[in-house]
């Protein structure tokens, strides 16, 4: 069977491309780096891929605001091609800065079939970058590949991760209508706004979003830094308790399920 293909986007300042590439390969995809410059010159390249991944980093230094300059470049030069990519059955994943880019681009949450900025990811309440492991729970959402109701630990590492909407009602609608896919949870498994379980102060603890047709996922914390068993902060304790290490770290589920869906649809 032909392996599903994943485009790993590169751009000045994107810096998680190697681990994202490796995680997709490990999940069975054939992944390829494509620099934004090349993609803008040859937008038809998108047709060769089933999965588009925008990795984390600091695209263009996160100047002006996080992800803004890369999103602007993609909006101006790729226009609706990305939307068409998703419409024709492509899957997309934005992690951390990649999530910020997809939000600025208007691809997330993308309530209807058009690019529009309706939410933002802005400065953490602490006003600084922070790297810490968080516990997340996936919701019943529109996302076609993320399993519902699982609890995972991934590291968050960002300074601008507080997901905000214009008003409280639109935020509630994101949850009610299945756009909010992942939430920060506390020790009891309940969605939380409290630091440090929620590292940025996002209302209702929203950590990740999907779009109207569930084919795009954006998350602030990093599945690409938690897909190997030894990535997990407590792997030694796990090994001690279970007598052996599990095959995967908690982040692997995203890559496996995405590749599984892409393979099934091919």
């Amino acid at each position, binding site marked *: 069977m032909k392996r599903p293909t994943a485009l790993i986007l*590169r751009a*000045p*300042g994107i*810096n*998680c491309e*190697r*681990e994202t590439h*490796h*995680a997709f390969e490990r999940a069975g995809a054939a992944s390829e780096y494509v*620099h934004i*410059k*090349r993609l803008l010159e040859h937008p038809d390249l998108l047709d060769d891929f089933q999965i588009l991944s925008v990795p*984390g*980093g*600091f695209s*263009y*230094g*996160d*100047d*002006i605001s996080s992800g*803004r*300059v890369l999103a*602007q*470049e993609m909006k*101006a*030069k790729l226009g609706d091609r990305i939307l068409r990519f998703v419409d024709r059955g492509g899957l997309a994943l934005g992690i951390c800065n990649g999530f910020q880019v997809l939000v600025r681009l208007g691809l997330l949450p993308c309530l209807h079939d058009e690019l529009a*900025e*309706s*939410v*933002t990811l*802005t*400065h*953490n*309440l*602490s*006003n*600084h*970058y*922070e*790297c*810490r492991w968080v516990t997340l729970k996936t919701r019943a959402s529109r996302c076609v590949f993320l399993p519902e109701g699982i609890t995972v630990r991934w*590291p968050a*590492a960002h300074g601008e991760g507080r997901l*905000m*909407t*214009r008003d409280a009602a639109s935020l509630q609608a994101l949850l009610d209508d299945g756009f909010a896919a992942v939430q920060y949870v506390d020790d009891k498994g309940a969605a939380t706004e409290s*630091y*440090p379980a929620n590292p940025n102060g996002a209302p209702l603890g929203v950590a990740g979003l999907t779009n109207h047709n569930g084919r795009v996922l954006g998350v602030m914390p*990093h599945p*690409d*830094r938690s*897909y*190997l068993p*030894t*990535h997990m*902060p407590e*792997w*030694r304790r796990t090994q*001690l308790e279970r007598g052996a*290490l599990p095959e995967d770290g908690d982040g692997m589920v995203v890559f496996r399920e995405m590749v599984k869906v892409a393979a099934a649809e091919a």
Partner: protein
Amino acid sequence: MQAWRIDVLAQPDQLDPIGDAARRTLTAAGLTGVSSVRSRRGYLLAAELTREQVDAFAEGVLCDPVIECFTVHAPGAASPRPEGACVLTIVPKPGVTDPVAHSVQKALADMQLPVVAAGTYRTYDVYGEISTGDLLSVAGKGLANETVQQILLDELPEGLPGESPPPDLTVHQVPLHGLDEDALVAISNDGGLALDGHEMRAIQAHFDGLDRAPTRLELETLAQTWSEHCKHKTLTGTVRFEGRTIDNLLKSTIADVTRKLDRDFCVSVFVDNAGIIKFDDEDSVCIKVETHNRPSAIEPFGGAGTGVGGVIRDVLGTGLAARPIANTDVFCFAPPDLPQGKLPQGCLHPMTVMQGVVSGVRDYGNPMGIPTVNGSVHFDENFVGNPLVYVGNVGILPTKRAHKQPNPGDKIVALGGRTGRDGIHGATFSSLELNSESESLSGGAVQIGDPITERRAMDAVLACADEDLFSAITDCGAGGFSSAVGEMAEGTGAVVQLEQAPLKYEGLAPWEIWISEAQERMVLAVPPEKLERLLEVCEAECCEAVVLGTFTDDNRLVVKHRDDVHCDMDLAFLHDGLPSRVLEASYEAPPLSEPALQPESDYAQALRDVLADYGVCSKEWIVRQYDHEVQAASAGKPLCGIREDGPADAAVLAPKLDSTRGVVLSNGLNPRYSRIDPASMAECALDEAMRNLVASGGDPDYTVVLDNYCWGNTRDPQCLGELVRATEALCDLATHYRTPFVSGKDSLHNEFRATLDDGGEATIRIPGCILVTAMSVIADVRRTTTSDLKRAGSQLVLVGVTKDELGGSVYYKTKGELGKNAPRVDKDAAHAVLRGVYQAIQTGCVLSAHDLSEGGVMAAAAEMAIGGKLGIDVDVSRLVVEGELDATKRLFSESQSRLLLEVGKDDLDALSASLGDAPHAVVGEVTAAAVLRYRAGATTLAELELGDAEAAWKRPLDVDGTLLEEVN
């Protein structure tokens, strides 16, 4: 030049974390009456844009439509002022790097708008009952640094900098013929060259022989190349010490250890930017640590950031390019609670320095995508004028790319950032003593970094390396092009055309282009037939690259600007003409004695005091601001335990994602022992680095080390004698451990001339210190361990001998004493301990391991409990000791070569078998109840709740007030 001004701010009902942080900063800096602060981001766009264009750009790009709004001020319009607010605006000074402005221009282009000049500023609307005078003075302490930024009150910046005046392109001669030494030294001093009379005379003689005067550019080239920073002329000079003559101190001590050990895993040492050792059959790892002290004293944010950027370029320029995989940072500051009244004039407050350094490292290392995995922070009053900022980087490269050599005919290619007037005279500035005027006079030597430009350069260089497109590479560091090209051309020769260098702005004289230390630049030697492809790859990676000249075969350094020859020098003189120094050294031990302390009356309080020492306490506030997970190689993190808040001893990395082969990285430093005996300081630094490494699973037999000196004025014989004594002790121990030195660096003259209230002067000298960084290669990261306790009921085994060694200890420090008995290392016993613990961890029986350092066994056991959220019961009467020791000494002695291990009861025999000759004893057990209990036999010495100790440990550097939220 007038410009459009666009203010972007949070909508009134939205939170403003940047404004809130500014309010906290102003209040912490001593401004009273601030009720609230709202922040604005400001952009300047040249006046030729139309109102419609500006509005469209602000709406489409500058403003976040969901939570922000914006206002546009026409060029020349008055600055508006919100009612009831004082408006504080911070603008980069002309010539200071403003990376955001470049992104603004890119976004203009993407929107198909005219690409015009752009700039940025930051504005704070400060509300409350405040005095504007006070506001201005505290703003300079926390919100801005006037070395690189301008602070405006109640006005927005008028516009963008105008056209630069045309550059002075004249070839300036500097006549030296017939001048006496005083006149020569005056020329050196006036030009900021940092050359002494002896050196100036050598230059005079050389040019007299040529029957001409040197040009300004030639003199500058010599000053850069011969600077202490580049040549290490003290450590490579001749030293007379205790009746002996030591020729080339560095070569006959540090380098000699490596030569004699001749370890087979060393690939390239002391010849390249970084030391290279074998990782596996295909790849090698390389490591470099250096200091960026002077710039960080003046502008902590920019200084620390560009320090990180510099050491990353060092590794990138190692061999034929290595990929950086980890940062390590070690800082020394004065205590952050230093009373303002004790702050010498001309020094930044240590809290300001610490916050600036931490954010500088953060804002460079994180965007580069290189994890900061290891470090430590040390405090001593004498770091007040000279904070130390050690920055290190590890890289990985195919072993076949470990060596380089430019060939005549190769093109000299410069790539990465553009050249500006930033960082002129950084190399020579770093060789001078700081004083109360350095802050205002040396601003030009300080730079602000642009990490994304460096990231582009890194991506481009690595892509070119994969295609084998160059024959040599180095970074532009101290001395800029002059050092980079001058070093690469040694043995060949070079012709450089300076007008080819891309400039940030017009107006630079040729000598300025030549020695500018503008950041983010690399220099490559490219065979002509590969040039076209190399330029293509750089273009594809959005990285600017130009041909600056050609390597030749005449061993001459020729530097031209268009047709004018600004330099035509014999490279042999440039590299070998520096006269050797002869320095006197002597050593006399300071008159010290052991304190006569009252018997300890409250051990629980003593523990809290030790845990709350700035050197011991939790550094979580710093660690969490650094990305330690990027690159997904982390298998042993800087914080460990079930809540990830326990201290880790070393970092464990698996840098190849499809392999479990690993690297362990650690460090050791203890400035306080230096006040008693520099030999103790040096030995303990190495022993501590090795303990940290072994505690985490490092292999002591596959380990290399780095030496990084920070010292005072070595022209003082006692000061130099201390350095020699420390060096010899360090080399002795390294020989015994069979750990070769693979790289090192020194920063001398770390003294601050303070002006006293009575008009007199006092010299504040740092305690001499050597940072030892250790790196080990291990077969499998799954056979490593952490310091957090894992299981109630397991046994605590203390390996190593406890002695009467509290001199320089934290316990004595908490009692206001220094003492005399600084720890020394028993070489044979130490080696047995390191090997034994490594073997034990390999068998898998060790559940947790932690090194004993500051605070002795009492602090170490508490730290293990904090990580594991379990209790301990330790009986100090069971320790293996030397001589008669009371309970206090048993608890707090800082004797070296000791580790505390957690082992299951059933595994004690297996452990003993692994430990072999290493002295050890079961000293306690892990308990389910979260209580720390210390006793001597049946007598309880201290019993306290874990949360009590944890709060004491977390409080001191809880700068944001958030760490304690987690303590129950």
